[in-house]
């Protein structure tokens, strides 16, 4: 008797949990469907080489999408994520070389630079009391200018080993730095295929994002997005949470920039590229189920949003769709993806509910 009621309760809990995470589950299913389809049709599908290539192509966008998520959760928007990524990219192209200690210091400085940019955004928004969208538009221009100072023309000197290791699988890491019998050890084989960027992505989500989302500051970010006035009246530290949100966003964008440097072995202060990353990050966030109105969503969803966006391009590649038609298909898919949420409008019975 009590066992069956306990079962029923856990079933209800599962149903509630499924309902709450419907958007996240949908985007994961969509990604898996696209990705399995891609691998089935790829001549070398389900191989390590394909995983590595895909993981490399998705990492920077996934990071920038995570960076974008946090201000969006707060009901704001960060138009400077692409610029922060580019600035760190240009900085890293100067710093990531030399002795291991120098490189470690360089990586640390790059991540610090990204974090500092985010902190500046937060301060301008909180203490300057300027709307996030316009404040980050302005700071984005400043960061882009600094990136251009660092790299007036594309180029850079990046450590080859490090760059090789970060854009490959664990086997190459072991082979390059000579542990686990250069990657040949029996215990190492089952995990040797895992691409390094995939590990970094999981680490960023588990070590950085999850603890943040569960912390008081993280919950405050959600609360601000739902109702800032109510959050203030509840005595939450609004200013601190806002600064923390932008700072963490800067950190993630910096990670993206750092990785882009290792991936391309160079720094490039490319304004259109920075703009494209910013805009794609917004799309990834929306596809990942985060509401642009704030308060609902998660950075995990955004990672999958970025994966979906990139997987669509992968599919274009193997089906040899006319390259001239690719931008059109990408645009239509993007527009369709963001319009899916609009179906809710049909269910609204009271027109006043539309105005939120």
């Amino acid at each position: 008797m009590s066992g069956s009621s306990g079962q029923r309760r856990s079933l209800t809990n599962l149903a509630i949990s499924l309902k709450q995470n419907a958007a996240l589950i949908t985007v994961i299913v969509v990604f898996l469907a696209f990705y399995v389809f891609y691998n089935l049709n790829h001549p070398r599908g389900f191989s390590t080489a394909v995983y590595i290539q895909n993981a490399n192509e998705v990492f920077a966008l996934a990071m920038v999408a995570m960076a974008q998520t946090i201000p969006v959760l707060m009901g704001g928007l960060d138009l400077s994520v692409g610029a922060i990524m580019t600035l760190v990219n240009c900085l890293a192209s100067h710093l990531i070389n030399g002795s291991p200690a120098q490189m470690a210091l360089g990586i640390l400085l790059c991540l610090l630079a990204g974090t500092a940019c985010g902190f500046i955004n937060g301060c301008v928004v909180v203490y300057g009391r300027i709307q996030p969208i316009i404040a980050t538009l302005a700071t984005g221009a400043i960061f882009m200018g600094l990136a251009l100072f660092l790299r007036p023309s594309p180029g850079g000197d990046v450590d080859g080993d490090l760059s090789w290791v970060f854009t490959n699988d664990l086997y190459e890491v072991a082979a390059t730095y000579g542990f686990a019998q250069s990657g040949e050890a029996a215990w190492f084989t089952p995990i040797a295929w895992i691409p390094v960027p995939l590990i970094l992505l999981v680490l960023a989500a588990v070590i950085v994002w999850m603890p943040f989302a569960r912390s008081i500051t993280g919950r405050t970010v959600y609360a601000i997005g739902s109702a800032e006035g109510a959050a203030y009246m509840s005595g939450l530290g609004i200013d601190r949470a806002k600064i923390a949100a932008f700072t963490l966003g800067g950190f993630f964008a910096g990670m993206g920039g750092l990785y882009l440097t290792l991936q391309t072995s160079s720094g490039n202060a490319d304004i259109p590229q920075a703009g494209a990353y910013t805009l794609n990050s917004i799309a990834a966030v929306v596809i990942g189920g985060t509401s642009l109105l704030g308060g609902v969503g998660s950075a995990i969803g955004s990672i999958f949003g970025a994966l979906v966006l990139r997987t669509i391009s992968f599919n274009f590649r193997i089906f040899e769709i006319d390259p001239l038609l690719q931008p059109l298909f990408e645009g239509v898919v993007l527009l369709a993806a963001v319009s899916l949420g609009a179906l809710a409008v049909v269910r609204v019975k009271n027109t006043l509910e539309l105005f939120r």
Partner: protein
Amino acid sequence: MSDQKTLWNRLSAEDRPILFAALFVVLILAIGTAYTLTTQGTATLLSPTYLLQQLQVGAFLGLVAAGMMLVILLGHIDLSVPWTVAASAMMATTVGGPAAIPVGLSVGLLVGLINGFGVAYLRIPSMIFTLGVNAVVRGLMVAHTGGFAPQTAATPLMQYLAVGKIGGVPVALIVWAVVSVCIVLLLNRTSIGRYLFAIGNKEAAAFLAGVPTRRIIILAFCLCGMLSGLAGTLLAGYSTKAYQGMGDAYLLPAIAAVVIGGTHILGGRGRYLGTLLGVILIVLLNSVLSIMQMPEAGRQVIYGSVIIVMLLVYGRTEKVTQ
């Protein structure tokens, strides 16, 4: 001391940005003139020819900003401007002949109609819907042109409107002036203008008061699209042809001009005179920086700093206290 304070207080919240932007324009001219006087010994910046030439270049940004302002007043934004500008220019040159300009305007109108429909009826946030529309229009244009600059040239009429002069005054400037007068009349003398402000302040209240909110939103996006189309058509005339990415340089400066001019980014407040000054400010800032041969890096930094400083003076929002 107290007199100054009362003067500043007497100015309404909408007048302050305009006064400050005007002062900033004068400051830019003063710095630029001081620079040219010391390096070349001439006050190039203050010559009417030079100013008219700058205003002629500014007309394209001015047209885009005028449309953008209507949309921002609603509390929305139009991110599809870059490819609306480019698509209008490309289609206008492709069609050519007497139909070129109507076609350019129609392309803008069509994009605006789609934007408006998505925002007003599907209730998709304009930020993301117009972004998607921009991507689709870009895709259509890449498919149309094959990814290269189209070989077709602008018609003589387009070129005349962009670079021609009537009695020493550039025609583009006259077009901008006519559009400006129309916008001012629309905003201040028609019920549609009042509705724009009402929706920007509180859409639900406007709806309950009987404002046809959906139609007004569509209308604003259509006007914004059409003005972008007009800017694209003229821009093609200015450079005698259309090319990829010709609209990219207009999106962010247009938003910046509107906001520097005191229009609230969340809608409901703003005056067209401010937008006008915002455009002039940005155009003059750009031209003074190029006279000083400032590298792109420095321009970006100064550009961003100016926006922040201006907004710190008068664009600060209320602190949330309830």
